[in-house]
């Protein structure tokens, strides 16, 4: 195989016209897909070389999914078997443990006796074709009258068997895929080719009349067989559907069980062990609550990497490190930029201070409007004595007020015996540098000095 370093691996793409060979090849070589496709068509016209090459790649190159499965064949969740045992689902432990790994099994795992069956078959076929061509070159009379039907049968069988290609099969079973119609068409074409080939062979390439008659008879037989087998087929199909639905449910439950096992059960175990330490228990419960809440109420449609996410992450970090509740309320949102990142850092500093020196819960409020983003961090501590700021607190002040000013925003700190509130404001419009700096000077002079 031509596997160069620093190239994406050769795999059939899901962006397919026929089997995704050209797209995969283009992806691997770094060429435009259209070019590869045109090249393939031209090569196909040049004596069928393109067709042979295409077929060879189709059979030899796995799809991206297959490749991924082959590379990482292991249970989706290593703890899933343990959890399903724990849940007492009535599944015998053996199959339950084996199940997660197996359903995606490919040809190779199911037929361990013939690891390279496809490749060997193909090689034999190609050798045969080559031999025939050479024989013809040397003037030997090859009976094309029998060869063509045989080729038709083999081709038809190949087309029909392509249905068993893993992704195709999944596509047929999975009703939602539009691929289904194509699958049936392929199956019908394969069947037609095989039947025609067989007829040609049996009737000895006789007259059309005979062929038609035979065709009619065979269609009648096939229809009769179909009529007899239809109830079984339907029953089988329904069973398959039911089993599939059951598997989807089982997968969902396994996911939930895995999540609960990883998070809630672990936390509960930790809480039992630390029952004596109230501070630790509260911290654990709080962190677990936050995590579970995030998992339950996450909106899959929502964009990630927003300003509110960053602020909430910062609040969670403060909560975890200091064991102090930080409640975040957000109104509006916007994408996180470098300047807003600076504001989140300043807010984080404010939260740390509030959690360290304030009492009670820390309230954080974020409001994003068209003009500006504002963050308020409030605690219920005893306030500050302007005279008693230690020298090392200058760094903290710098990291809030200085940081906001550098990014064209303002930081105000209002402290009273009832608590302290840090107000951060960052204008969102680009031309906000001048008034932002002026505002900072004014506020920092009056309020900022007498704080941490």
């Amino acid at each position, binding site marked *: 195989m031509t596997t160069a370093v620093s190239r994406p691996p050769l795999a059939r793409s899901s962006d397919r016209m026929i089997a995704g060979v050209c797209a995969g090849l283009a992806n691997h070589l770094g060429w435009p897909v259209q070019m590869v496709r045109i090249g393939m068509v031209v090569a196909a016209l040049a004596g069928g070389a393109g067709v042979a090459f295409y077929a060879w790649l189709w059979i030899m190159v796995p799809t991206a999914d297959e490749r991924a499965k082959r590379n990482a064949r292991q249970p989706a969740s290593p703890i899933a078997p343990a959890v399903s045992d724990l849940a007492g689902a009535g599944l015998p432990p053996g199959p339950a443990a084996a199940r997660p790994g197996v359903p995606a099994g490919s040809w190779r795992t199911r037929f361990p006796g013939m690891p390279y069956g496809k490749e060997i078959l193909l090689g034999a076929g190609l050798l045969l074709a080559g031999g025939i061509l050479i024989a013809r070159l040397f003037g030997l009379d090859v009976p094309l009258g029998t060869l063509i039907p045989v080729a038709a049968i083999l081709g038809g069988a190949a087309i029909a068997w392509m249905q068993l290609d893993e992704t195709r099969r999944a596509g047929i079973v999975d009703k939602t895929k539009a691929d289904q119609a194509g699958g049936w068409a392929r199956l019908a074409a394969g069947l037609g080719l095989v039947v025609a080939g067989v007829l040609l062979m049996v009737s000895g390439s006789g007259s059309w009349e005979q062929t038609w008659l035979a065709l009619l008879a065979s269609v009648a037989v096939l229809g009769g067989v179909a009529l007899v087998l239809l109830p079984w087929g339907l029953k089988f199909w329904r069973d398959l559907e039911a089993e599939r639905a059951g598997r989807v449910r089982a997968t969902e439950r396994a996911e939930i069980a895995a999540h609960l096992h990883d998070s809630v059960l672990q936390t509960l175990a930790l809480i039992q062990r630390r029952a004596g330490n109230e501070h630790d228990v509260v911290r654990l419960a709080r962190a677990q609550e936050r995590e579970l809440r995030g998992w339950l109420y996450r909106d899959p449609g929502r964009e990630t990497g927003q300003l509110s996410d960053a602020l909430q992450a910062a609040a969670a970090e403060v909560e975890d490190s200091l064991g102090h509740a930080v409640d975040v309320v957000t*109104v509006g949102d916007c994408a996180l930029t470098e300047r807003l990142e600076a504001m989140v850092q300043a807010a984080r500093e404010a939260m740390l201070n509030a959690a360290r020196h304030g009492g009670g819960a820390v309230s954080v409020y974020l409001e994003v409007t068209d003009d500006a983003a504002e963050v308020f961090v409030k605690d219920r501590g005893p306030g500050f004595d302007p005279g008693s700021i230690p020298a090392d607190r200058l760094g903290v002040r710098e990291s809030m007020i200085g940081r906001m000013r550098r990014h064209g925003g303002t930081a105000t700190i209002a402290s009273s015996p009832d608590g302290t509130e840090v107000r951060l404001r960052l204008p969102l419009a680009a031309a906000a540098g001048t008034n932002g700096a002026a505002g900072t000077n004014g506020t920092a002079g009056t309020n900022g000095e007498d704080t941490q």
Partner: protein
Amino acid sequence: MSNQPVAGGGAGTPSGATRVVIVDDHAIFRSGLKADLDPDIVVVGEAGTVEEAVAVIAAVRPDVVLLDVHLPGGLGGGGRDVLAGSAPLLGSTRFLALSVSDAAEDVVSVIRAGARGYVTKTISGAEISDAVRRVAGGDAVFSPRLAGFVLDAFGTAPADIADNELDRLSARELEVMRLIARGYSYKEVAKELFISIKTVETHVSAVLRKLQLSSRHELTRWAAERRLL
């Protein structure tokens, strides 16, 4: 806190105590909450399901019902079903919703069903007692998160004269909501805005009314996006 139970708030309680029914399906939580409440708040009934709750509330006619949002029984709507079942009493009995969840759909749906306030279960005993007295006095109780939802739903721009009265918050109401969202108590809001606590309460009640009654397009859309209505 400094506020007194409002005179006349506790109908049929000569001592001035506030009569409360606790509706929650967890007995441990009910007993814990009962122990946490201040002595001037008397628990006169408990219920664990929607049906029990409707029956108990109709029988004892409490001043305030502490209502868990998630309850078994009824039509599956939890606290909302209790509110619907107690609709004739909504004039005399006030409902304060309690929940472990602060998801928008839980909060806004019980408020729109008639609850006068919303607090999370992690709230302290003193805070919940304060909230009960406030609700008994006819005021609304807004947590910072509920204020955040209100600002999110109604938008942060003040009302014009031309707007439908129910559809937008006035500039003053917005200010009050913002301060509550920032974690200010009613007292602190009053101090910050140089108004009386009573005025703050009036503004909050007005916002509650708008949240309950508004059929504003944006609110509907906001709720629909969050699958609330």
